[in-house]
């Protein structure tokens, strides 16, 4: 992907139309636009979608934001639903009911609730069976559609509406599930974790690779939610940069079992830099809570070391 050029990429026709009802400054649709730019022009796609913010906002009858065919089924079954669509493609091709020269690709989007939690089984099944599809998790770290409830993707100590901070509570008590690793352990051909970088090269490269790698692929894309994380909408790119430079959200890929780090910060920033701008971690900066930040830092360090180890193998 050495020939990546943002200026060329942005000439591609938009596959997610404006007019959807996502909040101002939403990270999810930035991710969707970028992932869909990974499709080659002329190729068709069927987009799947788990119930969530993206779904209720992007196909509110009769307004669909999708330029490609789109199917939303339910919350927990985006993996299985697209399995069916992808299998139908092979059946119809085999039986000569689709033109030979038309290519369809299969991409499904789910939030972390629909992916890490309720849709986990369906995702795991689809990955294990090896359908030629990409499952994209837009991970904003909570059930944002229903009003910021914790999910297994929510980071430790985050203040959510089901792990509210109070006299007896410092927010969520558990660390987030490492879903990218879990899916990598399915031995699928391609898994990657990414978020928004300045020129979107990382997200673009991984999307294109995921879409055009034969078999099941999984992308975990961190998509900040200004409402749930409580930062000013304009700040999203700064938040993403801090997530990456603190190694809270490392960028990596697992290509046919080979782990590769996509980016290593020259100077690993302290986790405070990522936590500070977000209202959901405000309580951590109260006097007496220094130990909580230390705990958070320890977990980030442990995971980062583990990732470096995997990538060095």
């Amino acid at each position, binding site marked *: 992907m050495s020939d990546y050029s943002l200026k060329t990429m942005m000439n591609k026709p938009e596959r997610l139309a404006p007019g959807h009802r996502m909040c101002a400054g939403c990270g999810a649709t930035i991710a969707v636009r970028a992932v869909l730019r990974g499709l080659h022009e002329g190729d*068709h796609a*069927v987009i*799947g979608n788990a119930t969530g913010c993206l*779904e*209720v*906002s992007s*196909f*509110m*009858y*009769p307004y*669909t934001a*999708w*330029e*490609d*065919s*789109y*199917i*939303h*089924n*339910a919350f*927990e*079954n985006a*993996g*299985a*639903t*697209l*399995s*069916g*669509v992808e*299998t*139908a*493609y*092979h*059946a*119809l091709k*085999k*039986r000569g*009911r*689709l*033109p030979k020269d*038309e290519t*369809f690709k299969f991409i499904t989007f789910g939030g972390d609730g629909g992916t890490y939690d309720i849709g986990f*089984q*369906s995702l*795991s*099944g689809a990955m*294990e*069976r090896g359908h030629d599809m990409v499952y994209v998790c837009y991970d904003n770290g909570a059930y944002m559609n229903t009003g910021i409830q914790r999910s297994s993707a929510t980071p430790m100590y985050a203040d959510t509406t089901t792990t509210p901070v109070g006299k007896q509570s410092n927010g969520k008590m558990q660390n987030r599930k490492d879903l990218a690793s879990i899916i990598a352990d399915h031995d699928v051909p391609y898994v990657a974790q990414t978020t928004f970088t300045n020129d979107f090269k990382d997200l673009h490269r991984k999307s294109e690779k995921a879409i055009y790698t034969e078999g099941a692929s999984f992308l975990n894309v961190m998509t900040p939610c200004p409402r749930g994380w409580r930062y000013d909408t304009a700040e999203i790119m700064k938040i993403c940069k801090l997530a990456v430079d603190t190694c809270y959200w490392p960028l990596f890929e697992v290509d046919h079992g080979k782990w590769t780090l996509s980016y290593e910060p020259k100077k690993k920033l302290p986790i405070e830099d990522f936590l500070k701008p977000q209202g959901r971690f405000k309580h951590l900066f109260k006097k007496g809570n220094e130990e909580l930040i230390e705990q958070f830092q320890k977990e980030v360090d442990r995971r980062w070391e583990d990732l470096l180890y995997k990538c060095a193998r």
Partner: protein
Amino acid sequence: MAIKERMSGNEAVSYAIRQVNPDVMPAFPITPSTEIPQMVSTYIANGEMDTEFIPVESEHSSMSAAIGAEAAGARSLTATSSAGLALMWEELLLAASNRLPLVLTLVNRTLSGPININCDHSDGMGARDTGWIQIYAENNQEAYDNFIQAYPIAEDTRVHLPVMICQDGFITSHAVENIELLEDDKVKNFVGEYEPEEFLLNPGKPIAVGPYSVSNYAMEAKKNQEIAMENSKEVILEIAKKFKDMAGREYGLFEEYKTQDADYIMLIMGSAAGTAKQAVDELREQGKKVGVLKLRVFRPFPAKEIAEALKNCKAAAIMDRCESYNGNGGPLGSEVTAGLFYHKVNIEAVNYIYGLAGRDFTISDVNSVFAELEDMVVNGKEVEQHKYIRLR
């Protein structure tokens, strides 16, 4: 020339699936329907059909994948029983509301708990308000014939609804009986090619399926679904007529067995209708004016036609192989009596619950029911309206 064979209900339906050769079949094993995906997989492994089989990781996913495949433009089906159908519940509603003409072969088994693998209709009845057409079979022959009629009904543009083809677990699914099969080409011609007008995989013609809808549209959509269900009644009859022309076997919304002059009629569904008919034959020899109304089509519910069929009898036994836990009887008990009331048919009726979780139901049980109806009408015996048969 009809092909005479001996087969179980599961074998018969699997044979029909091979003949129809649908595009996609996701399925998950559950007793007593497991044999169907097994047999289909074996047909595929042996090159006798080329349906794409998806060995999914749950029944929720089998219905989800069937929905995806059907929306994509592929003729799809799945098979299940009991808890499998219950796990699909959310998806059953979506298959119907998305107006997808897919087919499910249900092998009826009781719902837990306690966990039990034997037949009753609690699974099918639990799905009675999901918007699916439901057709019940008395035996392997009917299961086979019903399956062959399923896609032509579902795919009719007046309908576009999913169809559930039901047979009784073990009693029909596993018992081997004589059957007349149709030639492959006859079945293929009868079912025809699936040619949807709009589908996900139509290049250059994108569609969007499964919207969020504000209430200003949702109620109208539900009414449209209800209209399709109403329409399906005439379509089911048209397809049955075509089927008779091809196969010689006649089907309706229900079968009336010796009901013409009957004073006492047993309304029953599924395999137990065979037992009821045999008892009626014997009772007729004793001069009793008794008959059986065997319900074939439960959804759409033929309330008006049933009321018409029952209006001249003195008393009806409404037989439910399912408990509704509403304190007032089973599902057929509720729906049949409501139908009689709306159509101003004022006969005596008793709702019997029988055969739950595989409890036996025999000719002597049928005899007792008819005797009780007669006692009630002739001698004024007071009979509970909600009675269990063979309960210890």
